[in-house]
């Protein structure tokens, strides 16, 4: 920002204090000179009550959005997902890549007027790693490879031994046990945000209630009614408050997405997710409001490679045939119809710094794929002219998953003569069955990146990964991933790892997710290019309607 603009907006802010905000908003211009609406509020829909809004405990996507508005980490993401300064103005990395030194801006303040110091980050990180906190996101601290983190998490070492220190009030030093090229990306995650020690010690678990909660983000917690709403208002103590436009951000908890859509259309909401299959109709009716953007998640089927799985599925050629016979275009265009992209590999195409490796299968037509699949199946001796094969598709209860399973079942039947049975289970039961690999055929899976880097996808197929529900084990794969962790340029290694998956077919990739939602066309600043959909209310503003 130029000095001139700072001065101008400073003067304007002083005028507001005298003249009242309504008159001011009318004359105020947005970041690109647009005329702003008088009403600077944003109301959006969330699916369910937040398990927690304590940054160290937040475990869901919607809670993270609240966390990003109430708190600010060392680094933020811009509208394209790039790392930009947050509380830290920048950082230095040691030559070996193991020590990061973050410089904190002195003007950063808590909403109670206290300064944000390096010590606040030290306290937060120790708290997140401390077994006594019992955070489900403790593992994230482990992922960051901070010195001593494993011993601290195991309770063998005091949290104060964690490799993070406040050199002075505005300098934070982090020591890692391995060089992580994407470390700065990782500190945009809510688990790493600072928390106010004095407030937590005073109120205990109740520190996240309105009235008690103190944050360092652009907004403060105004109201929280469980299963109904959460209201945030602008934090005047935020260091960059003069460039924050929205004064109220409200999340309404609406379980039913169709109800949410009706209420959006009635003008009660500015943003809501779209029910599956509605995108074609809504984008025709509301072309400026219906939006589809890539979302860093991949939908696939696990194939059970353990003894509990069908013998036929232990043959890579049978798995390949099954994969080839899935007409992904039909699934994304007809079944889901929300801008999803067919997937033949695991890592989402929009992942930063990643390119999906070239492969023949992608350039083939579906007829060619089907012909190849029939050949492979005939060679293996199953299907139409061979031994009958019956595969169970296990999925967690949901209309969308059923539709996909029905479509795939028909494709396998028609192309390969393989019959399928559908089995659906309620979520927790499903997780147990799939996690213990007690399914005979294939099981539906979806994986979303925790951070915008290919390893966030590829890690799950490592033999010791907790999410490797196929029971896939490849030494070559594991060593490629280990090598990639410290490689200067990990892309070729990632691509080789992908090629192993594409050759062995431990999973049958189906599509790359997209997020489809309705966004009121007066709301601007939504980070459409941020593939993780990490939005910050401080970047949003409402322009005056024409």
């Amino acid at each position, binding site marked *: 920002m130029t000095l001139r603009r700072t001065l101008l907006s400073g003067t304007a802010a002083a005028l507001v204090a005298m003249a009242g905000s309504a008159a001011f908003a009318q004359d105020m211009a947005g970041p690109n000179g647009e005329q702003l609406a008088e009403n600077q509020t944003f109301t959006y829909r969330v699916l369910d009550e937040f398990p927690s809004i304590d940054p160290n*405990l937040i475990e869901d996507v919607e809670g993270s959005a609240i966390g990003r508005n109430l708190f600010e980490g060392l680094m933020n993401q811009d509208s394209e997902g790039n790392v930009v300064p947050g509380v830290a103005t920048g950082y230095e990395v040691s030559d070996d890549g193991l020590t990061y030194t973050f410089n904190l801006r002195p003007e950063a303040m808590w909403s109670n007027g206290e300064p944000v110091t390096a010590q606040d980050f030290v306290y937060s990180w120790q708290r997140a790693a401390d077994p006594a906190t019992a955070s489900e996101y403790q593992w994230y601290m482990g992922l960051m490879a901070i010195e001593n983190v494993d011993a601290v998490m195991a309770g063998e070492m005091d949290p104060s031994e964690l490799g993070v220190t406040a050199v002075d009030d505005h300098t934070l030093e982090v020591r890692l046990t391995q060089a992580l090229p994407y470390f700065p990306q990782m500190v945009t995650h809510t688990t790493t945000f600072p928390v106010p020690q004095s407030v937590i010690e005073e109120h205990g678990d109740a520190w996240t209630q309105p009235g008690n909660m103190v944050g360092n983000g652009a907004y403060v917690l105004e109201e929280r009614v469980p*299963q*109904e709403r959460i209201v945030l208002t602008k934090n005047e103590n935020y260091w960059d408050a003069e460039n924050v436009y929205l004064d109220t951000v409200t999340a309404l908890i609406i379980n039913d997405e169709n*109800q949410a859509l009706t209420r959006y259309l009635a003008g009660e909401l500015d943003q809501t997710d779209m029910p599956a299959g509605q995108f074609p109709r809504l984008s025709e009716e509301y072309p400026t409001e219906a939006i589809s953007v890539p979302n860093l998640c991949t939908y696939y089927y696990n194939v059970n490679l353990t003894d509990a799985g069908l013998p036929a599925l232990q043959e890579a050629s049978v798995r390949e045939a099954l994969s080839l016979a899935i007409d992904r275009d039909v699934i994304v265009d007809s079944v889901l119809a929300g801008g999803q992209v067919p997937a033949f590999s695991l890592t989402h195409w929009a992942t930063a710094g990643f390119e999906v490796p070239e492969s023949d299968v992608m350039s083939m037509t579906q007829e060619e794929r089907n012909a190849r699949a029939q050949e492979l199946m005939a060679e293996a001796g199953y299907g139409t002219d061979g031994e009958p094969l019956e595969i169970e598709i296990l999925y967690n209860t949901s209309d969308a998953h059923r539709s996909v399973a029905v479509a795939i079942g028909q494709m396998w039947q028609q192309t390969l003569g393989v019959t399928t049975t559908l089995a659906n289970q309620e979520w927790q039961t499903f997780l147990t069955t799939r996690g213990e690999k007690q399914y005979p055929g294939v099981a539906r899976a979806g994986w979303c990146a925790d951070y915008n880097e290919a390893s966030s996808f590829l890690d799950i197929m490592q033999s010791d990964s*907790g999410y490797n529900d196929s029971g896939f084990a490849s030494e070559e794969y594991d060593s490629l991933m280990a090598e990639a962790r410290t490689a200067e340029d990990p892309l070729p290694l990632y691509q080789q790892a992908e090629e192993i998956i594409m050759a062995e077919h431990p999973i049958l990739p189906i599509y790359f997710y997209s997020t489809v939602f309705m966004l009121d066309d007066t709301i601007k600043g939504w980070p459409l290019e941020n593939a993780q959909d990490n939005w910050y209310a401080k970047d949003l503003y409402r322009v005056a309607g024409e």
Partner: protein
Amino acid sequence: MFSYILRRLAVAVPTLLILVVFSFVLMFAAPGGPFNSERPLPPQIMQNIEARYGLDQPYWKQMVDYVVNVVTRFDFGPSFQYRDRSVNDIIRQGFPVTLTYGLWSALVAVIVGVALGVVAAIRQNSWVDYSAVGISIGAQALPNFVMGPILVLVFTLWLGWLPGGGWRGGQWEYVILPVIALSTSYMASIARITRSSMLEVLNSNFIRTAMAKGLPMRRVILRHALKPALLPVLSYLGPAIVGMITGSVVVDVIFSTGGIGQFFVNSAFNRDYAVIMGITILVGALTIGFNLLVDILYAWIDPKIRY
């Protein structure tokens, strides 16, 4: 009468205990757990969390500790899913919401249902009767998960008269649609029960006597027929009111009221053991309480019944 009430209350205690044991067994028998998630937690972290919530103890000990905490301190424990609130908080915040729209629904259902039923019975086989029966069958056949969205479509999207959801501390415009959606099918049942029992009463000897004495119709109905005709309605009301005030999940989901029903269902899916238990006990206690109340009212209305 007094000793009867005492006896009933004494039976309620073991009943609730059996309920607790039964729910615990079912809960632990269900696969999964409160901290299972898509990304399985490393064993060390799982241990830390389970230790914090006492889930590492043997089942019997968890159960005994739970009962002791509830009985001695009225403490239903922390929620496993909603990390920054206790079960007591959840009930304290959600139950008044459900109670408000539940009681309003009960009131509307009884008043409209009884009125419809009585009118239909008096004018049996007339167009009044047919339309009352038609309305009630229609209302009962239309489930509230269909009715709710239609109400929102009409009153929020098309007419713009009422908000499509939310609660805002129970302001009247937020209460109307949930009450209509919840009360309709109960109203329909009450109308049908009232109609048939009214018809039966109207054909009985004492009504014929009253008519023969030349009493005005209005007086016969209100003074003599209504009270006995309402007995079957009363026995239906016990469980119906509990059903209404312990939350229609559907109403909570569609209108986002923040009531207890939504927590009940979510807690079962999330395996949030403490919330499941807390709300089960609440519902159990209410069921026992309302059934007792109905029995007492029965004795008051029907002179043939004495305890």
